[in-house]
């Protein structure tokens, strides 16, 4: 899958494929020098049928980085979104906390046009060994979150597996039992884990595909794999096991709270929520109340 062409001595071209979004990354550094190969290597290459294509220019800066324009969205300590004329500018403060960088020091600016298909990433490197490009972390996730909204999809806080050709997504907040579910399913024949924390889903008509993404708590589980989505399961810990089909309107609110929505841009948010609407109308969503025990696998399979 790995493909890399050298355009010029100072500009390497690397193709990335995440959820069928093609990213053409141009950088004076190699992927090894950017330290993105550890997390993104399974995602190097080009999709057979791209659902979107992004041009991304990476550049290095030794200057102090600051978000440009008016601050429009501040979800917490990690990143903030700014609007500068026709350009979006995400200011990302930390990712993997390299030696020498304070948590609050801005490490990366990600500038995007309205279509989120032409981007520049300006990043500050620290030291020689501990630095990793945020492209493999929060910056890359922001790019895909936007690209999914624009290509009929959404990113959910969820784990995903391929159970013998059937995509199953377990959604829940931190601590809801996503990783526990994965552990049970990994012991089953024909199960391919896709991700333990971030699932990308794209809807097309009454059909949806779920994809593994590079971002999660267990990087070795993140795989560049896709499966037709058969069911979405909303996890809830309980003293007794039970599974019940939710109506689209009941599923809507619960899924909206578990989706990574682009709150910074009305038009993009509208697209993402429309995609969510099509998702709950085309794919069954179940509420799975369960104890942490392997028999849940059979319970889930009984409704597929």
């Amino acid at each position, binding site marked *: 899958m790995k493909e890399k062409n050298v355009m010029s001595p100072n500009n390497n071209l690397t193709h990335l494929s995440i959820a069928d979004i093609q990213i053409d990354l141009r950088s004076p550094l190699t992927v090894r020098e950017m330290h993105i190969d550890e997390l993104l290597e399974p995602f190097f290459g080009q999709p057979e049928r791209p659902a979107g294509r992004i041009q991304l220019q990476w550049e290095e800066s030794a200057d102090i980085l600051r978000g440009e324009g008016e601050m*429009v*969205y501040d979800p917490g300590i990690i990143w903030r979104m700014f609007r500068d004329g026709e350009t979006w500018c995400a200011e990302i403060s930390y990712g993997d906390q390299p030696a020498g960088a304070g948590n609050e020091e801005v490490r990366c600016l990600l500038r995007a046009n309205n279509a989120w298909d032409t981007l520049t990433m300006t990043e500050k490197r620290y030291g020689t060994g501990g630095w990793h490009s945020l492209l493999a972390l929060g910056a890359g996730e922001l790019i895909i979150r936007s690209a999914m909204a624009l290509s009929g999809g959404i990113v959910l806080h969820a784990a995903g597996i391929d159970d013998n050709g059937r995509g199953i997504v377990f959604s829940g907040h931190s601590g809801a039992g996503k990783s526990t579910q994965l552990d049970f399913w990994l012991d089953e024949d024909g199960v391919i884990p896709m991700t333990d924390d971030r699932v990308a889903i794209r809807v097309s008509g009454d059909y949806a595909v779920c994809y593994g993404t590079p971002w999660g708590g267990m990087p070795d589980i993140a795989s560049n794999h896709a499966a037709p989505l058969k069911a979405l399961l909303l996890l809830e810990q309980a003293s007794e096991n039970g599974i019940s089909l939710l*109506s689209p309107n*009941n599923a809507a*609110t619960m899924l*909206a709270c578990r989706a990574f929505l682009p*709150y910074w841009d*009305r038009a993009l948010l509208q697209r993402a929520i429309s995609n969510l609407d099509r998702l709950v109308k085309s794919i069954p969503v179940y509420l799975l109340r369960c104890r942490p025990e392997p028999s849940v696998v059979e319970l889930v399979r009984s409704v597929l």
Partner: protein
Amino acid sequence: MIRKESFLLQTVGGEHLLVPLGSQVMDTNGIITLNETAAFIWDLLEEERTIEELTTAVAGRFEVSRGQAESDITLFAEKLDQNGLLQ
């Protein structure tokens, strides 16, 4: 009264969701669900409206007495105000 512009009302799976936008996200306790009547009123509040205007519109659209509509709208307007959804 008039609504804040920093929300997006969209229907998902038949449910009317009021989703905060941008900096409003941090000031709002998550995504808000509205029933049919509340969503209708929210749409009307794109422009400055009085309780009387809203009452006339709601009583004309839904099967409800004018008195009941006015009482419900007043209560709803208070909730909107308390939750920072009005300008």
